[in-house]
């Protein structure tokens, strides 16, 4: 119950030059917490709305529980949806807001009362049941919207950026509650957000989208460690991954990454990939996360391999970590460092990369050069 299958689904709005959702092909298992993430306008909401039945599917098939539902109306899909602006009925009390779905489904009155009260208790909104939505704070509205969704006990929950109108503290708290709620209820969840932190903390699997196209589908850890292209690598993680352009050359049986400022020995696991690329000069992008950048307070020693000198632009202390922004030639690189060591502007620390943790991407296509062969 609650499994979902998208079979090459497209959405083409009238008058738009390109599809809002382009060949969305994915299976979601029952009970899964799936997060759709991507920049604004990438088609997340459209995908969710097609799943809800609020938007027509232009091409492809959609199945819920192996049932073909392209033409099934929203109320018959056994789903519930939480909207970004909560969409509480302003003319009804909190109780009536939560009860309406049950009432319209001809649930017995005592059963409605039972369920509304139970839901209210779980969400700690029992004392608000007689209020109108206009008398609630943002966080309370959010809870009522959640309550309305879970009262009906649907097979699938759909949430479209439900936390983006809350302040940071409340957002973190509600995030945890939604995770708990979903694991208690064991229902399928499809959750849309533009916030990669939210995506990483909540999803058991994450779909990264861009311009209507799925970029990668993976669990959070894998998404972080093995991004399948430049876009995913840059989108997931904050501060974002550092990118350095350069070329790959073969010297005495070993591959080297080099540009004007640096020359690095590439780990053996990339050898097969580079062998397959038959161009004489191979333009690539090296990607390395801030935590895999190594800064050494003393200036670079020419003897030491893999280290070059850099120039500090600024430092950002977040508390547990501090991030140092440095320039190496034309490349700007962010390094996570121990906050115990202070770097000042125009300091010239030596910089190197943890070569076991670097990524390579094809400069032309953006595709990762490590798919399948990456053992971290």
């Amino acid at each position: 119950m609650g499994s979902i299958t998208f079979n090459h689904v497209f959405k083409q709005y009238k008058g738009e030059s390109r599809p809002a959702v382009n060949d969305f092909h994915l299976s979601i298992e029952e009970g899964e917490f799936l997060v759709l993430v991507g920049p604004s306008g990438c088609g997340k909401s459209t995908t969710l709305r097609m799943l809800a039945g609020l938007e027509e599917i232009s091409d492809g098939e959609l199945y819920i529980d192996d049932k073909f539902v392209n033409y099934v109306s929203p109320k018959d899909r056994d789903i519930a949806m939480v909207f970004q602006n909560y969409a509480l009925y302003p003319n009804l009390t909190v109780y009536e807001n939560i009860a309406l779905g049950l009432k319209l489904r001809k649930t017995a009155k005592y059963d409605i009362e039972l369920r509304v009260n139970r839901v209210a208790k779980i969400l700690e909104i029992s004392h608000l049941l007689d209020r109108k939505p206009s008398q609630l704070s943002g966080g309370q509205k959010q809870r009522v919207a959640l309550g309305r969704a879970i009262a009906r006990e649907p097979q699938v929950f759909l949430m479209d950026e439900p936390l983006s109108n809350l302040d940071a503290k409340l957002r973190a708290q509600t995030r945890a509650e939604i995770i708990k709620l979903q694991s208690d209820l064991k229902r399928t969840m499809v959750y849309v957000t533009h916030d990669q932190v939210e995506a990483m903390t909540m999803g058991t699997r994450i779909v990264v989208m861009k311009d209507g196209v799925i970029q990668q589908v993976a669990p959070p850890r894998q998404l972080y460690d093995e991004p399948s292209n430049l876009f995913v690598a840059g989108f997931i993680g904050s501060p974002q991954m550092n990118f350095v352009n350069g070329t790959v050359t073969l010297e005495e049986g070993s591959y080297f990454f080099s540009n004007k400022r640096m020359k690095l020995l590439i780990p053996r696991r990339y050898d097969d990939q580079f062998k397959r690329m038959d161009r004489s000069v191979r333009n690539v992008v090296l990607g390395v996360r801030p935590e895999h950048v190594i800064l050494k307070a003393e200036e670079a020693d020419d003897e030491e391999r893999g280290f070059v000198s850099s120039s500090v632009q600024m430092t950002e202390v977040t508390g547990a970590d501090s991030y140092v922004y440095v320039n190496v030639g034309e490349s700007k690189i962010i390094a996570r460092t121990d906050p115990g060591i202070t770097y000042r502007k125009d300091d010239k620390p030596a910089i190197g990369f943890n070569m076991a943790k670097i990524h390579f991407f094809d400069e032309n296509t953006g595709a990762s050069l490590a798919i399948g062969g990456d053992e971290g």
Partner: protein
Amino acid sequence: MLLSRLRRITFFDFALVLGFTALAAFMSLPIIFILNHAFKPTNELFLFPPRFFVQNPTFSNFEQLFLHATNATVPFSRYVFNSVVVVTMTLVSVIVVSTMAAYVLAKYRFHFKQIILSMITLSLMFAPETVGIPRYLIISGIHLNNTYLGHVLPALASPIAVFMLVGFISQIPNELLEAAKIDGASHVGIFARIVLPLSVPAIATISIFTFQGVWGDVETSTLFMQDETMRTLAFYVNSLLSGLQNSVAAQNVAAAAGLLMFIPNLIIFLLFQRKVLETMIHSGIK
């Protein structure tokens, strides 16, 4: 609380309040006059210089009004009854038809929608006089002369009501309707449970001017009702006044009739105006 507010009053506030009070007092003069006039005995009616306030109030003007009608072929109460029936039927049907039309025009996508909206806007421009003859042809063509429907039908299609409601309903967030759809509401359910309650301020507004239009309307009675028993109070008062224009004796009847026509307008206005404010405050729609 009061004191702290008092302290904040500036000269500008003071001047503003004073100005508006004076304006309001000035605007209410006709109302005060109508009210007093209706209760003046004949000698006071013709007093010179005329006075605003009545000295010895009397009901004799009303007695005369009712008596006068009773002398005619149709009793006064019949006109009142007709007016009440016509106004009620028109109000209910204008609200039902206009809100339903406006909901669909505001929230659904269908062919020729833009053309229909333009036509509604266009029809706002017609002066009522220009449609008198075509209306007459239609009403008599479908044999609605001397029926209540003949009163209601011409007022039923109210472009101004639809126009206003379309503007209002399109401001209701789509998510609300979608949430109701997912909750299991049918089209009618969404309309009745969400759209209609949220449109109350706009409905109150269109009710006010629909009421005023129909309550004071003499056209349908003049053009479509040949049978005196089917004519409305507005028609009766109107013919009374125009028939007695130069008669000194009838000024008291006119004074009473004037008040009688005015009072329901006032009541409706106060009733719905409160509703307009109330719903705006409590709806939570900004």
